[in-house]
């Protein structure tokens, strides 16, 4: 399965009619492209300079490739996104978070409703696979120690470069090496986690500096109330 996020800064804010039409197109995309699963949108509530987030998934790279050539993708979504489109509503930003995502065995990320939080991590490129794996286990175990967090999934950001077919890395580099996806029942639950005295929350408050020997060299987070309207046509 491919888990995927698109995150945008927008020119007119969430009240601009064209921006709202883009959000609606993301939200209802699964009604037109059946390969698009677990689709939800949200308006970022964190200080990161991004406004609109679209989270979704595909059963396989083949399903993703069918999405890529679907007329709804080309004619409706890209109308608001592509750099040369006269109807573009998104803006350039230097966060490098436009498209991120990871491969997983199944929909372990499912959150029916509530608050989604994404922490994009830049992991030291010199770190061993074993070190990174142990750190991911620690992050994924947070809900066991902190009930405020309902869900925690970590994946290598393969979609950042495999945006064309879901598998093949395209030229260029991805700024964020890993995606840490969290779920909370409410904003209060998220706040409760963020101020908790657990090791991981403490590390987050210090931007992961010195956490596990300096494994994480950078991070940024977004969070949003999930707006779901992904029903069959």
């Amino acid at each position, binding site marked *: 399965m491919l888990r995927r996020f698109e995150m945008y800064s927008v020119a007119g804010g969430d009240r601009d009619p064209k921006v709202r039409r883009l959000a609606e197109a993301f939200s209802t995309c699964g009604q037109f492209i059946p390969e698009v699963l677990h689709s939800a949108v949200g308006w970022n509530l964190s200080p990161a300079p991004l406004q609109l987030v679209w989270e979704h998934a595909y059963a396989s790279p083949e399903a993703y490739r069918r999405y*890529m*050539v*679907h*007329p709804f993708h*080309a*004619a409706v979504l*890209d*109308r608001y996104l*592509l*750099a*040369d*489109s*006269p*109807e*573009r509503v998104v803006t350039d930003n230097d966060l490098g978070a436009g498209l991120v995502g990871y491969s997983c065995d199944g929909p372990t990320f499912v959150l029916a409703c509530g608050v989604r939080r994404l922490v994009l991590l830049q992991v030291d490129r010199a770190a061993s696979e074993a070190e990174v794996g142990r750190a991911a286990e620690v992050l994924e175990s947070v809900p066991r120690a902190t009930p405020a967090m309902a869900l925690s999934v970590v994946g290598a950001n393969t979609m950042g470069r495999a945006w*064309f077919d879901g598998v093949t890395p*395209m*030229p260029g580099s991805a700024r964020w090496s890993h995606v840490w996806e969290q779920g909370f029942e409410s904003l209060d639950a998220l706040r409760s986690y963020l101020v908790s005295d657990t090791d991981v929350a403490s590390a987050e408050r210090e931007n992961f500096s010195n956490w596990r020997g300096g494994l994480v060299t950078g991070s940024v987070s977004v969070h949003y109330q999930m707006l779901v309207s992904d029903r069959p046509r």
Partner: protein
Amino acid sequence: MTVYLVDTIEVAADRLEAYLELVETVGVPVMTEAGARLDRCTATSVALGEPVEIQIVWSFDDHGQWNEIRKNMVLDPRWYEYGRRGASLRTGGTRRFHYPTPAAGGR
């Protein structure tokens, strides 16, 4: 089945020349090298005392080919320049995909 990408651009009359120069010098090389065909580029008259409308029509074989063209565009730094300069010159516009109809004999 041919697919047509129809960009309809609105510009002030005194910016028509600059926009057409951008299409000719940046847009056409980027798009044709990416695999699209330029079918036509027409404009309304500048002598009517109203904003000018430019219509640029690109074509390709199907949405599969468009996906390849799109990939090539995204990987071409000139495409971003085309987008930035175009946005600074126009006042509005639309992008639509069109398909042949029986009324024109399927063309």
